């Protein structure tokens, strides 16, 4: 049983660099073939100042920590009992190679579903870039198998 007193808890913010090589590796890992995601010349031709981060890369910036799951294991949750239930992104501005972003998260909600033996932890995250512009918001649903 996860203590509902964790609701509202702020996770210490962190900063992360958006590296071009990392974006190329991510593109390779997801089989991305559009040239603007891997080639600077193509990115410029498509109107981007640098390689753009693909839509789901914002979450990778949230994971850019020595132990990205500490926030939930600190609540007494066993990482082997956790599933990713859902993820939602809202986009406000592009994220580019060379950006330095700040990631701020909080535990937005904890729902216990005793009948199914599951708990749902909702984590909300906001990413701002080095110009202070909010680039993305994320809402993650983490399923914890309790029985």
């Amino acid at each position, binding site marked *: 049983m996860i203590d509902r007193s964790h609701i509202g808890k702020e996770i210490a913010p962190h900063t992360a660099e958006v590296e071009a090589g990392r974006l190329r590796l991510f593109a390779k890992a997801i089989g991305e073939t559009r040239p603007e995601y891997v080639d600077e010349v193509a990115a410029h031709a498509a109107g981007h100042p640098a390689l753009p981060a693909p839509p789901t890369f914002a979450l990778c910036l949230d994971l850019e920590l020595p132990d990205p*799951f500490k926030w939930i294991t600190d609540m007494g949750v066993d990482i082997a009992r956790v599933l990713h239930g859902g993820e939602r992104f809202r986009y406000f501005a592009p994220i580019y190679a060379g950006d330095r972003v700040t990631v701020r998260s909080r535990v937005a909600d904890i729902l216990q579903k005793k009948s199914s033996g599951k708990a749902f932890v909702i984590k909300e995250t906001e990413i701002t870039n080095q110009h202070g512009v909010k680039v993305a918001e994320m809402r993650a649903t983490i399923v914890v198998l309790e029985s």
Partner: protein
Amino acid sequence: MPLEEYPMSLAFDSINVGDALPSLALPPITRTMLALFAGASGDHNPIHIDIDFARRAGLPDVLAHGMLSMAWLGRLLTNWAPQRDLREFGVRFTTVTQVGERITCTGRVAKKVLRDGERLVQIEVKATNDAGEVKVAGDALIALR
């Protein structure tokens, strides 16, 4: 490298509810893909890459990252419209995906909406295996001119 163009027909008035996006068929999931995605995404949860850990957790094998399928759905969207026009993208991970499964991503226009002075289309997306089982389902909002 030549830059792939987006279709000229991608104007709000020429898009109809029910229109299908060109689907994206992926190769069968391999352990190499999961290892690469773990490194590239920063999700090093051993449940995706370490079969010994997965077995200790009571599973027969590692599980594919849900975010890998979501990234493929993202490719479905950015193959159709430029990413700068993507406003929202959300999914539910409905069933776990195993090594060896072959995922196909599909999308269709579910709704045309006006919001904050922008003309948007809501796209329903899903990632299914060869048996038609839905692994990931969700929607995206894309601004059109």
